[in-house]
């Protein structure tokens, strides 16, 4: 992304500072999953990073140019387990993934294994866009 501004330095550093303060480290609750007498609620973290740079125009040009890039990751950081039959704080347990990454790895592993099983069983030819449209408009 490139923005042309009259006075780049102050404006861009303000923008970057604001963006980072808004997005970095935001945590969000995922969809609750019930299993038996327990409810699991995953917590995800959004990490947001930016980088930028700028330069002055050649002599005789009025504008300066600056550019900056945005990047981010989303990952599960913990899961909250609520026990339905245990009232109060005793019924709430929080398992953090930050230390051992076990939950994150397990979910990833299951999907990878499934993809391997699927590839071993042979892939069928995918439905073309044209055929899909015909089905959807039948």
């Amino acid at each position, binding site marked *: 992304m490139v923005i042309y501004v009259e006075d780049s330095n102050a404006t861009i550093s303000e923008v970057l500072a604001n963006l980072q303060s808004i997005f970095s480290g935001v945590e969000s609750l995922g969809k609750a999953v*019930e299993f038996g007498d327990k409810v699991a609620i995953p917590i995800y973290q959004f990490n947001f990073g930016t980088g930028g740079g700028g330069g002055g125009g050649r002599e005789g040009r009025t504008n300066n140019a600056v550019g900056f890039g945005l990047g981010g990751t989303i990952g599960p950081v913990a899961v909250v387990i609520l026990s339905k039959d245990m009232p109060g704080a005793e019924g709430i347990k929080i398992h953090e993934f930050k230390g051992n990454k076990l939950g994150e790895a397990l979910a990833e592993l299951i999907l990878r294994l499934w993809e391997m099983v699927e590839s071993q069983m042979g892939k069928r030819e995918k439905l073309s866009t044209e055929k899909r449209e015909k089905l959807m408009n039948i």
Partner: protein
Amino acid sequence: MQQKEEIESLLKTCETAKDSVDAFLRSINDFIAVVDELPAVARPLVRRDLESNTDMSADEWKAFLERLGTRYSSIYDATRGVADALANEGNDVEVAAGMEALKEVSAPLIEGADTAIEELETMASYMEGLPAKINMVPDAFLKAEARDGLITSVPGRVERARALKDLLAQTKGELSAVTG
């Protein structure tokens, strides 16, 4: 005379096909309900398996069958219009208008029938192989009760998918004969 017989035959085929669509739609709804009851770990895997093997999710199958049912109802109504016009002996304008309406409502079905037939056979084959696949899932992911529920519901779906496939082929043939 032959045209009247073809129209009568098409009406019967549409009625049978509509029932067949409804039966298969109930099967898909049952499948969705059984999968919704599966443990949290197994649920997304079963959904993903159906989608990757038939190229359509259960919800897409449901939407497709609902549209097919509506299409059959429209074709039935238009065919009934032609049958009534033919019963009025010699009212060519009414017959021609009825035929035009039938041609219009049946065009998407004629165009998509071959693809639908292929997909229904894909679904039938997938369902046929499903019990063996379900038995390969480790007990930790799928309890015996849930496993039995999934397996016992499969055979009816194979038959219904194949019955609907045959009726689609028959409908396409009869429609082509009637509308030219």
